[in-house]
């Protein structure tokens, strides 16, 4: 017999005994029952309903009915405990949320990036944290040769700890601007910084790419990051932007291979974090192929609208609860 079934008997028994001989021992049992009820997630309205149904079935006098309230009161004190803790937790929660919001704003000021204007390129980007602070990072930079540098990174883990180590990536990226045109070299440098400074259990995946608007070559290197896609307008087909490379922070001397792709008018480069593919639809994760369908659906739109629409669709699909930070970037060659 499970707790709910035995509850009615137990409670009735308690009432009967108390009415025959009102004493402290039974009131103490009432308190202990209250603890048990809460442990078994029984809501207070159920207790009131149980009390009503027991007295309805009884042949107790009016006086006995009134006395039976002593036990109900004793049981309700436990809910009073929970109720008062709730009020206190709400206040704390609010304070904590405000604090994290301040930190998240600070993070945005610190890590914020704006989309630069690159001739012939339509750029869209969205990055939404699962909680308040973002453990994904993305950054655009336009160098002295009018090339676009684009970084996308994801700390393994999310929330505050992830956000904390993301600040480091930003400081490190800022501190070696000399080799901005070599994705592989950039990852090599970053890897050294991460390896030295971060907790051994904290790893970062990253993809760094450079788009040259003169020759329309996109060169990139990847440190274990979720592969992006290349959309070929001519063939109306998607292919993976493969790239091999160890995660940042594992092995000091890692080298990162550079890859190159030729981009034609109407082609799109799609970069993402695994939060995009980790969306859960009902019981199954969406596949990379499903994601392609979503891009397909919106590909006629400006890049910013594509990424925003895909985000909104996937957000609803998961009942408005993100499981991981979500970052999606699209570079579309328009001429």
């Amino acid at each position, binding site marked *: 017999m499970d707790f709910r079934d035995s509850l009615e008997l137990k409670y009735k028994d308690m009432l009967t005994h108390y009415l025959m001989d009102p004493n*402290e*021992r039974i009131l103490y049992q009432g308190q202990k029952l209250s603890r048990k009820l809460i442990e078994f997630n029984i809501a207070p309205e159920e207790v009131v309903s149980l009390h009503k149904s027991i007295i309805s079935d009884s042949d107790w006098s009016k006086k006995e009915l009134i006395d039976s309230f002593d036990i109900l*009161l*004793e049981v309700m*004190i*436990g809910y009073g405990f929970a109720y*008062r803790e709730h009020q*206190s*937790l709400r206040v*704390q929660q609010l304070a904590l949320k405000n604090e994290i919001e301040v930190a998240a704003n600070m993070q945005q000021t610190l890590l914020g990036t704006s989309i630069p204007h690159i001739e012939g390129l339509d750029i869209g980007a969205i990055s939404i944290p699962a909680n308040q602070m973002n453990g994904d990072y993305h950054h655009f930079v336009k160098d002295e040769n009018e090339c676009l540098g684009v970084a996308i990174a994801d700390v393994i883990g999310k929330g505050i700890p992830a956000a904390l180590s993301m600040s480091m990536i930003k400081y490190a990226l800022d501190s070696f601007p000399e080799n901005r045109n070599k994705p592989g070299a950039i990852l090599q440098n970053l890897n050294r910084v991460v390896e030295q400074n971060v907790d051994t259990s904290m790893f970062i995946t990253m993809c760094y790419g450079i788009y040259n608007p003169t020759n329309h070559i996109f060169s990139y290197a990847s440190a274990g990051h979720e592969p992006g896609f290349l959309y070929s307008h001519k063939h109306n087909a998607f292919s993976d932007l493969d790239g091999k490379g160890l995660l940042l922070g594992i092995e000091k001397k890692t080298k990162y291979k550079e890859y190159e792709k030729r981009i034609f008018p109407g082609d799109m480069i799609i970069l993402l974090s695994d939060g995009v593919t980790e969306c859960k639809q009902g019981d199954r994760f969406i596949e990379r192929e499903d994601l392609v369908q979503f891009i397909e659906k919106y590909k006629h739109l400006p890049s910013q609208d594509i990424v925003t629409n895909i985000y909104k669709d996937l957000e609803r699909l998961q009942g408005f609860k993100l499981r991981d930070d979500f970052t999606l970037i699209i570079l579309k060659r328009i001429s």
Partner: protein
Amino acid sequence: MELQSSVKIKNEWDIVAVRQLGRNVAKELGFGTVDQARITTAISELARNIFLYAGQGEVSIEKTFHNGRSGLKIIAQDNGPGIADIRRVMEDGYTTSGGLGAGLPGVKRLMDEFDIQSKLEEGTIIMAIKWLR
């Protein structure tokens, strides 16, 4: 002016005894039924803590009078292991004792005054007062 009596806590039956003592004193002082139930619940929690974490100890119930108000004072003491991090124990949601909202912060909220002193390997003494309104 204080009148005191106390109960040694060694097993669960002693919890009932000290509840009864507390309820009698609360009635004498003129506390209503809700406050009686709150006071006995606070006493139970403190006595139960002694029983669970220190093995044994003592709970005293005093009448206390201050600035024309009268109140009921609970003193729970033990020579148990003591509390290493009082700040932590006083945090909401720290107790894993199953019940929601109970534990020391819950007792503190039920009563009007609350003080705790504890030394590792020497024991803990908790004082709580409920004033009659």
